[in-house]
């Protein structure tokens, strides 16, 4: 069983997993490791660590801005892998890398995955590598013991949902809304229906985690109650990091408290 699967399996009955997204190297690589400390202290169960990419087509304004900050601070893919390794050694928390396919492809998928594995990475999330393209690489990630976490969307049909549920590993990442990443004020009713739909295919097979737009503890609660095994919170964490330059210590402390409130909501 992978570290990511164990993180889900180890939760009490109705408790959900909290997956927190952080842009690697944001606002700069050294500060980023403090950001990781803060979200872990707040209770994050899994760290999703982004590698900044020049052309992030699945991301909204918040994460685009984070990528710009990280890249202008000189963040490279290797530096993000070091951050992953340090986080693992320090906190023993599972780490999934999130980045676009060209970052892998340009180094050779297998080479880069091997490098990631040697930096203790447990899984990868590649939003522009959908099922059909990912299947060419499935053998490599399986052999290396790295979870390839696939994404499902509101436009995914029942037939595809079934295939996604049986081909993903670690968990199935359900994109809760049409569009790109970004914090939203409220949850749509359609999101809850979508969770129930996806849950039919993941139940008893693989954990279901829901992301895109989730920003408040109330959302977390509703998503878990609708049948999700976990939530992914990204943009609203990244937005808090964006304030770091103005308000250093406060930002980390507020972030930790914010994550704590999200984690509390996963327990009901």
């Amino acid at each position: 069983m992978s570290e990511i699967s164990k993180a889900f399996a180890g939760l009490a009955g109705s408790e959900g997993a909290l997956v927190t997204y952080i842009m690697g190297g944001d606002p700069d690589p050294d500060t980023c490791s403090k950001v990781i400390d803060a979200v872990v202290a707040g209770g994050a169960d899994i760290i999703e660590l982004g590698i900044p990419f020049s052309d992030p087509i699945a991301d909204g304004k918040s994460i685009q801005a984070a990528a710009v900050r990280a890249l202008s601070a000189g963040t490279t893919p290797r530096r993000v892998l070091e951050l992953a390794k340090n986080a693992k050694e320090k906190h023993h928390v599972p780490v999934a890398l999130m980045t676009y396919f060209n970052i892998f492809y340009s180094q050779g998928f297998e080479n880069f995955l091997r490098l990631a594995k040697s930096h203790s990475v447990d899984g990868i999330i590649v939003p522009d590598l959908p099922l059909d393209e990912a299947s060419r690489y499935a053998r490599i990630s399986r052999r290396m013991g790295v979870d390839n976490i696939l994404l499902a969307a509101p436009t995914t049909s029942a037939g595809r949902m079934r295939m996604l549920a049986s081909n993903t590993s670690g968990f199935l990442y359900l994109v809760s809304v049409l569009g790109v990443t970004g914090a939203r004020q409220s949850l749509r009713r359609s999101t809850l229906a979508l969770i129930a739909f996806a849950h039919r295919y993941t139940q008893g097979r693989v954990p279901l985690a829901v992301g895109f737009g989730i920003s408040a503890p109330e959302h977390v609660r509703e998503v878990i109650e609708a049948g999700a095994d976990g939530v992914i919170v990204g943009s609203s964490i990244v937005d808090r990091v964006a304030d770091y330059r103005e308000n250093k210590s406060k930002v980390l402390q507020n972030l930790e408290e914010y994550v704590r409130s999200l984690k509390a909501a996963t327990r009901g």
Partner: protein
Amino acid sequence: MKSYPVNGRFGEFGGQFVPETLVPALQELESAYLRWKSDAGFRAELDGMLREYAGRPTPLYFARNLTKRAGGAMIFLKREDLLHGGAHKINNTLGQGLLAKRMGKQRVIAETGAGQHGVATAIACAALGLKAEVYMGSVDIERQKLNAYRMELMGAELHSVTAGSRTLKDAINEALRDWATNISTTYYLIGSVVGPHPYPVIVRDFQSVIGKEIRDQMRRREGRLPDAVVACVGGGSNAMGSFHEFVEKRGVKLVGVEAGGAGRGRNAASLAEGRKGVLHGMLTYVLEDEDGQIRETQSVSAGLDYPGVGPEHSYLKERGRATYVTVRDKDALRAFHLLAEVEGILPALESAHAVAHAVKMARSMKKEQSIVVTLSGRGDKDVQIVAKEAGLEI
């Protein structure tokens, strides 16, 4: 080789590297396209619009003076610059606009670099009664103010893109994000043979009218096919449209001309200097740094200023069926002036790259041989840039 790609791939190139949200929409697009492309009513409507509205067929002109100046093979110009809107782009926007209508989509989005595709989209949407919204980088809006305003005059809504390098690639990113958000109501009308499958096929097919006319016109005039077809390559649509008819005809040399900019490392020559990579949903040659970050590009011509290229060009290059060369800014500018002076034609700066290379090629060929150069657009939009390069302010 010229047949429909297998599983969305031209050899290893192409594919659908897009977020899951878009995958069903691409499948819907592909089945709609396959259904309508051979539908007699659809074909008749498109052919009618191309003839009566856009101005097809375009002339094939024997450039006698240019030929004499080059001193070798005969040079013919395929006059896409004479189309409504001033460029080949309208072949594609009318085709895809009609497809959008058949699919019941009322809202059309597009990206544009130089503004030519944005203008062609605004034109097609106005004529077909569709709502057009165009994404354009803020740097490009600044460089091509007139085109930006032309789009608005024809009722298109312009969105300025301030992310990344604020040019064409960022406009495509933003259009893809919009599409994922508004997928059920919106048709994404992409402007070149780029992006995820089936776009490279759809755009190629709608542009392939260029090569078909070249074939007929050369047969009629010269009684044979040309020895070479030369076209500029940004994303690669006018080149693919010119080449497609001849891919199986081994005697016809196919030459694509990329933007050489200011020289090595400062250009937009993805095929010449790029590596295989994944950008905008396709596996193709891209300009990137050693980490895989997409590089910024440089060219005097905004329409060629793109760090990727259509996957079918990558395939033709790899198979050795087409060759790709680069022409630098200064040589493209020189060709612009040459064509203006000897033929009275102002070519788009994009097309001037092709002219420059054709003149060079002609010199080393025999007098009875022939080259067709696709003049993809007219140069009115570039007059200010040309003046500025010549040190004038107008």
